[in-house]
């Protein structure tokens, strides 16, 4: 941009159009013209900065200025500051009201600080990695100590059952168990159908269609019923625990509880954890029934195996051990899901975003631990030979 050439930027606002302009003349005087107010400021400030960089700016002439607000005044000051080697370049012919506003802004406006340098990209990545690692380790440790505290609380309640809060316990059993029946039943029924069709398809190649019953029975009872149900519950109840306790945390309700002398572990966490430990095994039992029912229906349609045949074969092929192997995992998974849900809820800090983040974490960690625990149990049962 050569001196003398006009730099014009304008923007429209409201009903009438607003004109704002910056014009740098050959003497190095920048003419500030029109409205320097917040809304049209973006464009005109950019063009003024461009003009300043392309040729020297020695003074600003404010005689053409019609309206000014604090953001406009700030833009002018920054311009004057950046153009002057030390201190401001002169601001000429301001109208009295503009001069007053500039005074106010000069008083409040500190020197422009250079933006902090973030260091090299690799350094930033390493720093982030280290920070995350430390935070994760610290949180794992906190979770561990939370598990300890909760266990002690629950043991204490078992010794002194009169301190138990029965109402929340029952209502949590209703919320986590009874209300989950439709979705748990439907999903396990469908899984039973899927397993039966897949097994029938493969086994009929060997003429062993009847073994479909074995694979449905063993698969559903040992693994699928408990796994599917626990994952649904982690998504359904784990997240609910975190959101409930988390929003109480945001409202300072937890602080209020502590101040009154109520122990949140005893009042909030123990009933939830115990409720889930009661309702999940019941749900898993129901899920097993629904899964086998789904398999039986599929077998009836795909293989012409009647319900009676299916039941007889089930009794022969599937020992009661398979049922126990499945259901014994349920309380453990319930305890882990509920503990993580409560822990994440208590970790919520007092802002709205943190409730969402903690709820997500609660579900992700819950599902992860469900599968991890299942793997550990599989190895365990392999070793003891069940």
């Amino acid at each position, binding site marked *: 941009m050569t001196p003398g050439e006009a730099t014009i930027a304008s923007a429209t*606002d*409201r*009903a009438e159009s607003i004109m704002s302009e910056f014009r740098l003349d050959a003497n190095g005087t920048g003419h500030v013209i029109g409205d320097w*107010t*917040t*809304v049209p*400021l*973006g*464009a005109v*400030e*950019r063009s003024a*900065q461009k003009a300043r960089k392309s040729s020297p700016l020695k003074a600003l002439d404010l005689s053409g200025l019609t309206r000014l*607000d*604090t*953001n*406009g005044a*700030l*833009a002018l000051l*920054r311009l004057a500051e950046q153009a002057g080697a030390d201190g401001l370049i002169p601001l000429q012919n301001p109208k009295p*009201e503009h001069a*007053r*506003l500039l005074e*106010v*802004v000069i008083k*409040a*406006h*500190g020197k*422009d600080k250079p*933006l902090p340098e973030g260091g090299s990209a690799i350094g930033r990545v390493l720093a982030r990695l280290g920070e995350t690692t430390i935070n994760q380790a610290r949180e794992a440790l906190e979770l561990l100590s939370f598990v300890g505290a909760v266990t002690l609380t629950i043991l204490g309640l078992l010794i002194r059952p009169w301190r138990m809060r029965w109402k929340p316990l029952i209502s949590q059993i209703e919320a986590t168990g009874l209300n989950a029946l439709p979705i748990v039943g439907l999903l396990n029924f469908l899984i039973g159908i899927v397993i039966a069709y897949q097994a029938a398809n493969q086994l009929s190649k060997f003429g062993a269609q009847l073994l479909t019953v074995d694979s449905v029975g063993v698969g559903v009872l040992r693994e699928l019923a408990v796994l599917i149900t626990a994952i649904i519950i982690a998504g359904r109840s784990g997240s609910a625990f975190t959101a409930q306790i988390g929003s109480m945390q945001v409202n300072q309700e937890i602080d209020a509880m502590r101040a009154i002398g109520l122990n949140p572990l005893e009042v909030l966490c123990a009933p939830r954890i115990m409720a889930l430990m009661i309702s999940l095994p019941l749900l898993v039992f129901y899920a097993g029934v629904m899964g086998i029912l789904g398999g039986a229906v599929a077998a009836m349609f795909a293989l012409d195996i009647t319900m009676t045949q299916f039941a007889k074969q089930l009794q022969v092929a599937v020992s009661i051990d398979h049922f126990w192997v499945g259901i014994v995992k349920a309380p453990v998974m319930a305890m882990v899901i509920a503990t993580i849900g409560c822990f994440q809820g208590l970790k919520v*800090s*007092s*802002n*709205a*975003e*943190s409730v969402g983040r903690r709820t997500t974490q609660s579900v992700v960690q819950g599902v992860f631990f469900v599968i991890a625990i299942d793997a550990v149990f599989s190895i365990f049962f392999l070793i003891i030979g069940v």
Partner: protein
Amino acid sequence: MSDLNHEELAIHVEGLRTQFGPVVVHDDLDLKVRKGEVLGVVGGSGTGKSVLLRTIIGLNKAAAGKITVLGQVAGEGGGEAERALRRRWGVLFQDGALFSSLTVRENIEAPMREHTELSNDLRCSAAELKIALSGLPPDAADKYPSELSGGMRKRAGLARSLALDPDILFLDEPTAGLDPIGAANFDLLILELQRALGLTVVMITHDLDSLHAICERVAVLINKKTQIDTIPNLMKIDHPWIQEYFGGPRGRAAVASAERANAVSVGVNE
């Protein structure tokens, strides 16, 4: 109302009626706010001070009446005009109503991001300017609202309401919950900003000191309508609530009760 008058009025409310179900909050209410004045709004609990403010800024829908803000009639002119109008007022809600997941700086930048095309570093230093203007220390910029005290949250809320350099500033109980010194400082701050920036300020308050310190005129909400005047003129009105409010239990209580006793049957007149 002629157009000439609209030029001098920042806000003009005519015949406003608001109601929630069967409950009528305002009935045939008129309110004129002049450009550049500081207007206090007072009234007993439940007389609809906050509702009035929310109705003027369009958060509540009026059942009847016409609201003109800066020459623009509410509900006319379509979405773009409404958006342009929203740029020209700032609102300070009771507890600041800061966005809890953003820092103070980001809170102040939020309206600027939405409504302007300022370059990043100008926007950043504009936010810092607003922080300084509202009397917050510079290190408050990168704090989250939960890390601030109640008074600082109010200042941060004020800084955000000033982000776009509004023509009108709405304040909902700006000094409630502050200690007396903090409240007095906040009053001075508002007055200083109002003078420097030429703002029109509409302030709901229960703080008698605030009213005396910074309000030129006061609107009293009584019987679903408003009485606007300066405090000395308002005190001449023979309405028990006004008398009790401005007379106060201390100092003027005796005078007020004597006046009430003298003129029980005289109606409210301006």
